[in-house]
């Protein structure tokens, strides 16, 4: 559940008319105990209190349900701040940015990392965006490939073959 605060600005003092600021559309962010979209199991982190801050103003507050979902309003090519709250104080912060850029090819390392990251696999924080996505075949990437293979019942050999590329595309997008 999330509450979206309304932003209203009057045109002039005493005017009955007003402008309504348009908030960016929401994007689902799922907090989970394990990666990948659920398939009949429960992975979401239930009961996380949160707030979303955009341009210095708190625009959303709420608490996650069983699916751990937060619909974060993030401007395209911009960013919002998502804060996890405990007793009204922020204890963890996420700088959420959003891009309309297409995913890189699934046969390229950066495309594989983008998909693994999207699915919640822990690929570290290297790379230009600080989210682990780059072209380096590092230990975090290998571990996440192995995690993905294990979670999908595949032979774990850290080789991203055509089968795994297809699974990544199916689960995270083309």
């Amino acid at each position, binding site marked *: 559940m999330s509450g979206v605060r309304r932003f209203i600005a009057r045109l002039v003092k005493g005017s009955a008319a007003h402008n309504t600021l348009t908030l960016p559309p929401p*994007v*689902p*962010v*799922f*907090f*989970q*105990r*394990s*990666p*990948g*979209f659920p398939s009949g*199991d429960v*992975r979401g*982190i*239930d*009961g996380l209190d949160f707030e979303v801050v955009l341009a210095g103003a708190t625009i959303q507050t709420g608490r996650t349900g069983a699916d751990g979902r937060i619909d974060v309003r*993030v401007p395209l090519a911009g960013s919002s701040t*998502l804060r*996890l709250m*405990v*007793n009204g104080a922020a*204890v*963890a*912060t*996420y*700088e*959420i*940015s*959003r*891009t309309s850029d297409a*995913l890189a090819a699934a046969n390229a390392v950066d495309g594989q990392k*983008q998909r693994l990251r*999207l*699915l*919640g696999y*822990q690929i*570290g*924080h290297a790379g230009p*965006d*600080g*989210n682990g*996505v780059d072209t380096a075949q*590092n*230990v975090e990437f*290998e*571990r996440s490939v*192995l*995690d993905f*293979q*294990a*979670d*999908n*019942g*595949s*032979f*774990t*050999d*850290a080789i991203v073959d055509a089968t795994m590329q297809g699974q990544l595309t199916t689960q*995270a*997008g083309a």
Partner: protein
Amino acid sequence: MAVRVKIRNEKQIVVPVRFTRAVTGPTVIDAPDVDDRGFAPGARPATWGSSDYRGAMVGITEGDTVRVKVTREDLDDGAPLFVTSTNPKVAAVAGPPAGQPLAADGIIRITGVADVRNTPVKIQVRLGSATGPVLGELEPHIFQLHRLRVRLHLVSINGVATTRTAASMVPVFQQINDIWRAAGIQFDYDPALTRNEAVNGLAVAGQMTTNLAAHSFAEFSTIINLNPDNNRINIYCVRLANEVFGLTFANNVARPNGYGIVIADNSVPNSNAHELCHYLDNPEHAHENAARQGVRTDIWARRRLLWTPNPYPAANPAHRNDVGYGAQTRGALISVKDLAGDPWDGETNRARRRSLNPF
């Protein structure tokens, strides 16, 4: 410091924490390797019951307290974390103290209280308080200790004897038992029972000679049939072996080919523990596929006790040169999980089953 998340394709999953081994370097008895291979639970032996946990597993001998590390993969360092057990009568949280947050080093201490059938337990990491949201889960398996008797044989081949002595093997078995502690198995070595054996007529003095590619292991069979003790695991020490640091068949291979272990003087305790894993019904290696082809070279395979060789040559990519146990050194993980994609997984369960009837 904020975690940076860049959303592509209009959706994103965040998994905040992970469980890992509490130390790096050689095996430490109270810091078992954590079977963090994947988050899916895999197959479970019938006596483990069902669980909805999603995360890592770790083995703990009943009565032991072990250390495991929580890593904040996608979570601020300062976020207050609390650790709880879903069933303290099976596995209890010994640290941090109840009501206290996890320290900055991320180390939690878990006591294996009781080995209870069909009673799975979860160690849960929670945000903000002991009743806060569950960020991550670890499933410990508590094992009643199985103690297996060992008989050591010091072998002289064509007049050239092993350099090992009964006394020198005491610390070796301590290290072997450190590795096996997480599986709830202990090898009881009594140096006073050590036997001296002599064999002549082998190809090279002091050496066990084999040609494994040609399935030629006659000298191995000769050695393991020297005065065996039918009520103990028989381990034969030789000066040298031309192809291996040690050799074992699974314990379902009868004499004259099975029921014994040969170790060379240049084998380290990790290698001896490896041979004992073979003995306890785990004949295949961690790098092998279902067709027993050595195809795996990844970091997980190298972390397992049944990886071979040890030490291993320089790897490519270079990050495979240290999987947490030192440079080009195999790990000591005896797999707890039984992953669907791994034909030889579930080593702990198989070893424990055999340890009920080991001789």
